[in-house]
């Protein structure tokens, strides 16, 4: 008979555990980002792949260095995969042909300033990737808005592998021929609002824009996976996209000439990416269903306000950071009602009105 030596450490129940764990959550997020990443690399060629790899490398190297300096377990912590997720999300927000130092610097900034100074995973108040995006946008506005028109991989106009390396590491300004305006530009510059064919292009992603944010369909596919697997709560994307759509529809009704309709807002820019992958980063989001809905709605409203009346064409990063800052307040104000108690925390009165039930 196999024997058993009692383990005298007093471990409390439960003695079994669900299958969920942090590395698995991060792997699922990476899997969900795959369609958007693949579409981005396909549309913008080898330089886009370089950007992705450099941003991830920057994040992972910075995380490893910060952990080593803080004398914390490097291998165990890196294995949670959160640095890779941050790097990939940052890369998908960057211009596809970003110079090497932009992606690398962004990655390092995201991890060091956005995450490790707060104490690492789970401790940061603000979304690291969005913090880096804003920091890069205000520091390097030229490089951060150098959009290229899509030239699918292996097409004649697409740069080859070596040429791609030259674009990434060469450092020269982009040839004028390829630079272009994004789909959201008409919001600020005036002009034709997208309609029909243009909306289809937005859905497929065949428009100039950030590396992984142009294809709404690819993002939606990944987002659906996350919601279905319950990796992200549905309330955030629903409230975010819903609020954005309602505001856009409302102002579009008032003055269609000045305010584009909801479809452009939903499909263009970073709205889809934000709704499923950025706003849903649990670290900076509230923990209750109602809190999440408020958070999502807040981001949606801020995106609309910044896009429509703000100084930047896209407001996703600012909107997320502002609502991240509001999260502790939301979590304090929105708490579930406890069993057997009123919302105030006082016990339920005895002898409830039975006739009412």
């Amino acid at each position, binding site marked *: 008979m196999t024997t058993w030596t*009692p383990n005298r450490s007093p471990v*409390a129940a439960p*003695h079994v555990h669900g299958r969920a764990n942090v590395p698995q959550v991060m792997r699922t997020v990476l899997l969900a980002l795959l369609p958007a990443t693949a579409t981005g690399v396909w549309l913008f060629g080898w330089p886009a792949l370089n950007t992705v790899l450099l941003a991830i490398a920057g994040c992972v190297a910075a995380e490893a260095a910060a952990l080593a300096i803080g004398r914390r377990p490097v291998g165990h912590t890196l294995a949670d995969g959160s640095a890779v997720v941050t790097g990939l999300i940052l890369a998908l927000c960057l211009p596809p042909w970003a110079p090497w130092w932009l992606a690398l610097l962004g990655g390092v900034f995201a991890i060091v300033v956005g995450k490790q100074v707060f104490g690492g995973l789970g401790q940061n108040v603000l979304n690291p990737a969005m913090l880096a995006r804003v920091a890069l946008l205000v520091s390097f506005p030229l490089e951060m808005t150098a959009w290229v028109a899509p030239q699918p991989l292996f097409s004649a106009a697409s740069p080859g592998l070596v040429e791609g390396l030259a674009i990434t590491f060469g450092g020269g300004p982009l040839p004028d021929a390829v630079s272009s305006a994004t789909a959201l530009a008409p919001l600020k510059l005036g002009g034709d609002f997208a309609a029909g064919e243009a909306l289809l292009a937005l859905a497929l992603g065949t428009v100039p824009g950030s590396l992984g944010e142009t294809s709404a369909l690819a993002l939606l596919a990944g987002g659906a996976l996350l919601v279905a697997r319950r990796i992200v709560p549905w309330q955030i994307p629903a409230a975010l996209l819903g609020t954005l759509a309602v505001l856009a529809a409302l102002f579009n009704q008032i003055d269609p000439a000045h305010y584009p309709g909801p479809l452009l807002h939903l499909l263009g820019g970073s709205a889809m990416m934000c709704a499923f992958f950025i706003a849903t980063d649990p670290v900076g989001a509230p923990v209750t269903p109602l809190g999440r809905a408020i958070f999502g709605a807040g981001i949606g409203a801020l995106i609309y306000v910044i896009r429509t009346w703000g100084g930047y064409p896209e407001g996703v990063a600012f909107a997320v950071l502002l609502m991240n800052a509001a999260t502790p307040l939301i979590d304090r104000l929105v708490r*579930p009602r406890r069993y057997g*108690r009123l919302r105030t925390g006082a016990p339920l009165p005895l002898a409830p009105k039975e006739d009412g039930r």
Partner: protein
Amino acid sequence: MKIFRFRGGIHPEGNKDPTACHPIARLPLPKRLYIPLQQHIGEPAAPEVKVGDHVLKGQRLARHQGSVSAPVHAPTSGTVIAIGDHMAPHPSGLPVQTITLEPDGEERWVETEPAVDPFSLTRAEVAARVRDAGIVGLGGAAFPAAVKLDAGNRHPIDTLIINGGECEPYLTCDDRLMREGAGYVVEGVRLIANGLGAKRTVIAIEDNKPEALEAMRVAAAAHPGISVLRVPSRYPMGSEKQLVTTVTGREIPAGKLSAEIGVSVHNVGTALAVCRAVRFGKPLVSRVVTVGGGAIRNPRNVVVPIGTPAADLVEFCGGFTVTPTRVLMGGPMMGQVLPGLEAPVVKGTSGIIALTAAEAHAASERACLHCGRCVDVCPVGLVPLELAARVRAGRIDDAAELGMGDCLSCGCCAYVCPAHLPLAHLFNYAKGEIAARREAQRKAEETRKLAEARRLRLAAEAAAKAARRPARTTEKAETES
């Protein structure tokens, strides 16, 4: 019948099939029985026998003391060979006062109370028989059943709920009991209902036990006051508060008893014990235990005398196939680790579960992601991640403010946590700390009151003395003159 939904909850892997498919087996009489005097919530029982005494099966070994307590009876006939410390079935492994019995193998019963028509008994008589039989809640909490019946006399009970939820994974003892002894269970249910004066009775069974549901429906069909209710399989359905909500739609107000809203909850195993006690006059001396878990060779349910060492059960079920990582008493969600296989089965032991490493899905702890899954599943509506952060920082008072005291210790939060934080572990610590602080505060208050009373008494004495002194001097003067 309408079913109400309670907040949160989880769907853990049931792992009930390996034991649910076998009939209950009977354990051969063990060589020694170790019967702890404290097997229930409340005061320990006081021994009535001495070393060397020969006792008969069902003879009382120790009587109850205090209002919340239960007597202990001899599980078989034999000789008392020791009264002293033995390992308690508690994670601490600390010894408790235990009577050691060497069976004589004859299983001779003590003369039991004559069988009567149990429905001719008054409520008080039913409660007395239940108390004298040493019956405690067999679902695991081991609260003396007679105390609950008494509470029914103080508060009018309109609904009796019989808990056949058995929501803990692995455990199937109630399932088998309902399949094999439905008639006796229903009779016990009717006796409890009678004892409480309940208007209606609901036997709630989770939908993962279709055979038990069917057996109970058939057994209860002749009794219009009893309905058998199919409830969804969702842990912690078997928790009293959650079951009351599921069946009645009402919540038990914080700090109140279920009896105060007219509901009483008893376990199906308890109902069977009540039937045996009231109809046949037989005390609680054995119970059904699920011996399961991936490390047990032949997992099954076994009926065993109280006091049987866990080792005898494991051996009867073929021993371990692999070395278990943990051996538990009770289910894996709320059970406790056994300090050793010499610990005995007590009245509240629903299972001996030997888990393999693969079943436990244990992983090293990581950083909290703030993902809020613990909030989603908490059946109380707590925010476990906030509580955990405060408990870790030693801010117990802040945790109490956020409702730490309402925690059921059901473990849903820890089960789903992707960071594998030991949430329930932290909360048990915090609740112990809160109880200790409250006790310290009560003592300080008591001391202050005593000191105040002493000060007042001394002041009064001094005043009386002062008042007498001039009188005495006058007396003196009078005698001198």
